[in-house]
Structures are given as structure tokens and as C-alpha cells.
């Protein structure tokens, strides 16, 4: 007799269970990872500095992944996350250094860039019906060209006060971590409890059925893209604050990180499946592994990308294996329509 609570997959539709099977797996993996690292090199790992550093990295990785996940969830993708990040950084730099704009206003302008970029993606995708892959891929190149052209390749200076969020901490926990944590909490609430979140999950789950059930899928996809742009630009602001400089290359490495962490965190590539907690765990694992590898000089920096690619593949293989095993078990029970 199949029990109704079978699949504890991390969608928002299930009862508000925070801990799905997969997320639990992530939490356990993180725990193991942390223990291993702590044991191997207690000084470089269990120290206030290390905690601070790791928490900051994790926060940034999670935010970038969230930007990607928001689009994946509605059944699309955003290949321009890095591009949006870099163009945001350029605008931020210009406003702080060249136009003498006060920091708070510069941040607002930067975030608007993200919103605008996301809206542009969303418009082309929904109004013209062009696949998100091509649209965001093209925009990525557009932004990459723009950022090099406008900035001339040189980083912009930012005032020391701007580094507050990025460089300070409270009770040993970096502000970045807190900011991103708040965003993750809000996202989790959005997906699990709000109508907009439901609309996104439904659209990603089966866009036709969602539309034929009265959901405005176009508006939903548009809004998801705007949100993605906003998150990407927020990440750019945080990066600039951390580095105390607005470097136009910010964002170049984001694309692969956004996918890696989103996928490790359980985001469904087809759409309709997402977990904010999962993304957070994915970011943690990712950062810990990276940190560990750097600490132990296990991987020369040049090979970092191979490592990242391999990690994504591993995460996808693990997911697929779980699926196959579950399917095999299901096939043992006959389908309801005999």
C-alpha cells in the first residue's frame, strides 16, 4: 500500500517539510566534509578567520546559484548571470568613482541594472517566445563586450565605507552571510508558501497544464527572470564590497558556479523542483571542497575548472542514480491503470 507521503522531493508543493530526503543527504555530506577538514587541519579550518572566510564564500556562491535556480525552476535558464554581474559592477564603479554618487544611491542604481537586465531577458523570452538558452547566451556576450569596452579593463575604486558589508562581521559571522541568509529564507518562504512561488513551480512543472489551469505563465516567467537579474546584481554589489574594488571581470566565473551549486543543491534541471535550503547546503559543500583543496594544495589552480565540471557531473550522476533506483522499485509495483 503506497503511502501518500511518498516522494519527499524538495518541491514547494509538498507539506512544508524543510528536510527532504535529498536535502538531508546534503546536510549529512556537509557534516562529514566539515569533520574531515577539521581533523585534517584544525588550525586553518577551525578558526575565527576561517569561519569568516568560508561563510562569506558560501554566501556569495549561494546567491549566484539562487539567481540561476530561479530561472531553472520555471523551466528555463540564465546563462547571463555572470554577464549581469559584470555590467552591474561597471555601473557601480562608474557611479562611485566617476559620478561621485553616494554609496546607497550607487547600490540602488546597480540593483536596477540587474532588474532591467532580467526584465529584458524576460521580455524577449515571453513576448517573442525565444528559448531562454539563446536569449541569455547572447546577452551574456553582449554584457561581456560592454563591460570591457566601457571600463577599458581597469577596476574602479570604491570608498572604504563601501566595504562595510563585505568585510565586516558580527559575532564572527560575516554580513554577507547574513544578507544572503535573509534572501534564502525569503526565497524558501516564497516557494513553499506564496502564490507567486507556486505559480513558478507549476509553470516549471508543466507549463501547458499550468496555463490551461488559469496561471499566467508568461507573467510568471517574466518575473522569475527579473528576480534572477536582481539576485545577480546583488551578488555583484556584495563582491565589490568584499574586494573593495569594482572589477569588471567580476562574474566571469559565475556561470559554472551558478550551475554547480544549484544542481548540487537539488534544483531540477527540468523545472518545478527547487530548495533554498538545498542551495545553501550545496554552496557550503562547494566552498568547503574548494577551501579544502586550496588548503591541501590538492589541485593546482589551473585545474580548478576541471574540478568544478567534474563536481557538477558527479552531482547529476548521483541524482540520476537515485532516480533509477526509485524507478526500479516503483516498477515492482504495477501502475494504477492496469
Amino acid at each position, binding site marked *: *500500500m*503506497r*503511502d*501518500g*507521503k*511518498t*516522494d519527499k*522531493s524538495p*518541491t514547494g*508543493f*509538498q*507539506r*512544508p517539510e524543510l528536510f527532504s530526503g535529498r536535502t538531508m543527504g546534503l546536510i549529512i555530506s556537509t557534516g562529514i566534509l566539515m569533520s574531515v577538514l577539521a581533523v585534517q587541519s584544525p588550525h586553518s579550518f577551525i578558526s575565527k578567520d576561517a569561519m569568516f572566510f568560508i561563510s562569506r564564500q558560501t554566501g556569495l556562491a549561494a546567491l549566484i546559484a539562487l539567481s540561476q535556480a530561479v530561472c531553472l525552476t520555471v523551466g528555463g535558464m540564465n546563462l547571463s548571470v555572470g554577464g549581469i554581474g559584470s555590467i552591474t559592477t561597471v555601473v557601480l564603479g562608474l557611479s562611485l568613482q566617476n559620478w561621485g554618487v553616494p554609496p546607497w544611491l550607487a547600490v540602488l542604481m546597480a540593483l536596477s541594472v540587474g532588474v532591467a537586465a532580467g526584465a529584458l531577458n524576460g521580455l524577449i523570452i515571453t513576448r517573442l517566445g525565444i528559448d531562454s538558452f539563446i536569449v541569455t547566451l547572447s546577452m551574456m556576450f553582449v554584457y561581456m563586450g560592454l563591460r570591457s569596452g566601457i571600463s577599458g579593463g581597469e577596476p574602479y575604486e570604491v570608498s572604504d565605507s563601501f566595504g562595510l558589508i563585505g568585510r565586516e562581521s558580527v559575532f564572527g559571522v560575516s554580513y554577507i552571510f547574513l544578507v544572503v541568509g535573509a534572501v534564502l529564507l525569503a526565497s524558501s*518562504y*516564497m516557494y513553499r*508558501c*506564496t*502564490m*507567486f512561488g*507556486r*505559480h513558478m*513551480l*507549476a509553470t516549471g*512543472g*508543466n507549463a*501547458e*497544464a*499550468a*496555463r*490551461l*489551469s*488559469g*496561471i*499566467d505563465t508568461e507573467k510568471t516567467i517574466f518575473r522569475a527572470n527579473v528576480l534572477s537579474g536582481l539576485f545577480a546584481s546583488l551578488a555583484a554589489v556584495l563582491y565589490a564590497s568584499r574586494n573593495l574594488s569594482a572589477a569588471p571581470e567580476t562574474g566571469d566565473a559565475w556561470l559554472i558556479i551558478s550551475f554547480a551549486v544549484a544542481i548540487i543543491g537539488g534544483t531540477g534541471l527540468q523545472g*518545478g523542483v527547487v530548495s533554498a535550503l538545498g542551495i545553501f547546503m550545496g554552496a557550503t559543500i562547494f566552498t568547503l571542497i574548494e577551501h579544502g583543496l586550496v588548503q591541501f594544495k590538492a589541485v593546482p589552480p589551473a585545474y580548478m575548472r576541471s574540478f568544478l565540471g567534474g563536481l557538477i557531473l558527479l552531482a547529476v550522476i548521483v541524482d540520476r542514480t537515485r532516480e533509477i533506483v526509485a524507478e526500479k522499485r516503483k516498477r*515492482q*509495483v*504495477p*501502475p*494504477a*491503470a*492496469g
Partner: protein
Amino acid sequence: MLELHSISKSFPGVKALDNVSLAFKAGESHALVGENGAGKSTLIKIITGIYQPDGGKIVCNGETLHFRSYRDSLDKGIDIVSQEIQVIPESSIAENVMLDKMITYGRTGIINWRAVNAHARKYMDMVGLDLPPTAVIKGLSAAHKQLVQIAKALAAEAKFLMLDEPTSSLTEHEADNLFDILRRLRERGTTIVFVTHKFGEVFAVCDRVSVLRDGRHVGTRLTRDITAPDLVKLMIGRECSDEHLGALDVDRSKELLRAEHVTRRGKAADASFTLHEGEVLGFYGLVGAGRTELARLLIGEDGIDSGAVYVRGEKARIRGVADSLHRYRMGYVTENRKEEGLLLDAPVRTNITITIWRRIVNTLTRNISMAKEQEIAADMVRSLAIKTAGIEQKTADLSGGNQQKVSIAKWLAADCDILIIDEPTVGVDVGAKEQIHKLIWGLAKEGRMGIVLISSDMREIIKLASRILVFRDQRIVAELKDIDDGVKTYESVSAEIGRYLG
């Protein structure tokens, strides 16, 4: 020709087949019937090699068969036309039909398209598919896709052909065509096994019928020796009726939906009709006649070129399903519940409440109350008698009939009082079909709703409708009134409809 000896198959907790022995003779047409869960599809999967039996054996022409996969069965001349549409959408019809046996130029591997198209044409003509072989599958209707599947099976020249609900998307005319083909195949010595819910077919086409119930073979009869009610009794162990459910109380003063000269090129020409409160208005016609097309125009999925639609007496400008639902309380139950009607991976609760989230959302926190959702979903499950392990059960796990009920439930949850229902009982077994029929009828009679029923099942539409509009070539060519007056017989009404179809 093919014999099953004491086939048993168990899954954890369920014995799907219990000592089933059946014998299929060469050149016979044999129907296999039974309710959902009776074991039909398990049996088919065993015959085609997808499952392996736990006990018993399959003997073909004296030789005991051991299948390890679907390919093995194909090699032995056993083929199946399944219920699900399995075609390659981006390829042409010819490519789909000839997929297994493409004709190439010698050994170069280069496809000889002229020959492929010509061969495909032959099989397409056999099933009455009047389209160019180079046409792409993607734009075709479900019915045409099914004809392509059948053509493909014919091309495979199997000796033992199983058809699982092959006419579920076809109308009488096309089905008759198919039966002619099957008859000719039988004359050539092909054994045909027909899995179906439609008794009309069983008696019209098959020599013998075998009944499965709860995994057991409860009987095989010659079709000329058994009547439909007896067959039903064998299947479900109790009586069942196909009679009209009684006269509906149509309130002609309360007009719910009116179309006036609605026209859209290629979809509808000058369509006009009125739907009243308490009425079930049937749309009957052949595939492509324009019924679903008109429905989609009414709910705003497609744009109208000229003409007007009035909802509750007021002119309506409907811009899409969302509009139709939220502004006009008009719902549309699609014919394709799996692809377009449901989120299969989501729980039943979600599929029922998807239409009313905006109604139960808290304006301040934007939170959707889980408690409210559960309450509404549980209420629907109860009143529609949806058989499910709970409102959290994954919708994909429900049987076809119960999935269909969920598909209808979400419009009821949204308080729609106009409902357009498109092919509600496709792939649904007798028991559930009856329940859905009673449900639809009850919605009109007691629920005071106005229902447009689109169906290609003559029995179903005559059973439920008080008026029937006959469609042909995107036009409404006839209106049959007072179907439910208790005086008209099924025979006279179906004959009249048949006349208009030409």
C-alpha cells in the same frame, strides 16, 4: 497460435496475475477486457517481453518462448499498438511509419525517401490517413497520431498484433475504417488481440472475448454467445447501465453562454449556439470537425476573427484561460489530461487547488494557507469519490479515471458554473466511466451548471446530453433537441447524427 499457461506475476504486496491461462487462435480477433487494475496491461507487458512472468510459460506455435526484452517479441512477430501516443514529433509521418524498416540505397545507408514515402503511403491509405507522407507529426491531432501508430504496426507486418485502446481518439467513422483493416488482416491469418473498454467494438469486431478480473481469468466466451450486460457482470461482478440518466431541468430563461457567428479561419465558421443553466450540450463530430477548436476559441486560447461571445448575457472579451476562469467562471477540461490537464508530479492537493490559489492567498503575507488547501482538496476528493491514498499522493500514481476526476475537480473548486468538458472518459474503465457520467449529469441537474460536452463516443453523448450539436468541417450542421425526453431511442438519435455526418 499463442498460448499462455498458468502465468503468474507478483509485485511487492500485489498479485497482478494469478495463474492466467489463455489461448489465442491463429487468425482470430480476440478481445481482452477488464477493469483498470484487473491485470490487462501486465499481461500485455508479459506477452511483449517487457515483464518476465514469475510462473508459467508462453508457447507460440508449439515453441516455448523466452523473452528478455521487447525486441525479442518483435522478432517473433508480436507487435503492439499502445494506448499512449509514441511518435516522433519532429519527423514526418512516413518516417514514423517506416521507422523500423527504412529503405536505403543498397548498403550505403543513404535513405531512399521516394521509396519510403511510397511504402508509407500504402499503409497510410489502409488506415485512411489522408495527408501527405512528408507531413510533420508535431502539428497533428491526437487522433491522427493514433492512426500513424496503427499504420506503423501494419507496416511491421506482425503475425500477432495487440492493440491497446486503439480507438480512444478516433470517431466511429475512423474506427470502422480500422475494423475493416483488422478484418482484412485476420483473413491473412494475423491474430489480433484487442484490449478495449468499448463494448461496441468487442461485439462488432471480435470473435471471442476474455475477461480478466482481479488478476484472474474469469472466462472466455464467443461474442455471439454473450450479451453486453452479461459481459459487464463478468467484468465487475455487478450490473451496470447505459441508459439515459433521465431528463435534465433546463432553465431556458437563464442563458449562460452564447456564441454568435464566431469565426476563425481554419478553426470555426459562423458558429452560433446557446447554453442554458442546467443543460448538457453535446458537441459531436469527426476529428477535425471543429469541436475542440471552437472550445478553444470560447475560452480565449485562440483569437476570434469575427463574431461575439456572450457570457451570462453580457458581451465577453476573453483573453485566455486565466481570464475565462477568473473573470467569467468558465472552465475547460482538456482532452489531454496527462499533457495539458495535470501536473503529474505534484500531489492531488495541488492539482485541485491550482485554480484557486489567488482566492485563498493572504493579501499581507502572500502566504497560501496549507490548511485551507487541504480542506478544499479533501472536500473535492470526498464529493467526487476520488480513489487516492490521500490528498498528498502523487497524481501520476492515480488511475486514469481518478486522474480525470481530479482534472474536473479543480474547476469545481473554483466555483465555475460553465464547464466545457473535452472527451472526459478516454482511457477510463467502465466503473469509473459510469461515475464520471453521473458526476457530469449531476453537475447539470443539481449543480445548475451549464455543460458543453465534447465527445466522440456516441453512446456517451446520447446518454448525457439534452441537446446535441453536430459538427462537420468546422461548421455546426445540425442541432438535435430533446435527447433526454425519454421517448427517443439510442438507435434513432444515432441514425440521425449519422445522416448529418454524410
